[in-house]
């Protein structure tokens, strides 16, 4: 377990670097989590993060890779909802990394 410092705030992370408390999430927290992964968030990243938060709202779980691709294709179209695009944005592990940055729990059905 560790903590992430965001401005004057300190946010608790679990052993895999996911937020302990999903309520701690904010855009600043997402930027700080991304910085830890050497990632600069672009508008293309943000639209996926927002989609993931919407997915979690709807289904109360974090998607594995296939459902993430399917959901993204459904909401943003097939040119965004494909593994190439998502792998490029999230360093080859979109389900895990994007869930982390979106403040969701670690997906359970992912290798």
């Amino acid at each position: 377990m560790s903590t992430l410092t965001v401005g004057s705030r300190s946010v608790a992370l679990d052993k895999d670097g996911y937020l302990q408390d999903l309520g701690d999430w904010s855009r600043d927290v997402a930027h700080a989590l991304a910085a830890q992964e050497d990632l600069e968030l672009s508008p293309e990243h943000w639209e996926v993060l927002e989609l993931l938060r919407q997915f979690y709202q709807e289904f109360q779980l974090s998607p594995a890779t296939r459902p993430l691709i399917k959901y993204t294709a459904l909401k943003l179209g097939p040119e965004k909802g494909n593994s190439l695009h998502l792998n490029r944005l999230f360093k080859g592990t979109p389900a895990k990394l994007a869930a982390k940055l979106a403040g969701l729990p670690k997906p359970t059905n992912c290798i």
Partner: protein
Amino acid sequence: MKRHRSPIGSSALGAIEMAKSLLIISRQAPWSGPGAREALDIALAGGAFDLPLGVLFLDDGVFQLQAAQQPGQLQQKNLAANLQALPMFGVDELFVSSVSLAERGMDAGNLSLAAQPLDEAELSALVDRYDQVITL
């Protein structure tokens, strides 16, 4: 005999066609024990890996499809919301026993998930269609 179609292209098809099809029969009420949750977890895991599978809600399992539940009061994960994710995980073959529904005064037209109602004869045909069956 009807075989399960694969939703993806030819490259990965070899492995998938060899995968055995699996029917998960979910027979427990949502909050009576871990059975309903475990059945769903198997379905989600199998779907994530593109296994050909179906889910049948039978006996008290049909209570999982009751609309407007308030699981938050039990401080458990929301099974009903999780169930909605099945089609996203590629699990589109969802069935419910119309006899089980009728016995519990439930209406097939008012379920939280679009499951196809089947009568007794259709149920045995369904079970025959799958290579493997798990009951929880």
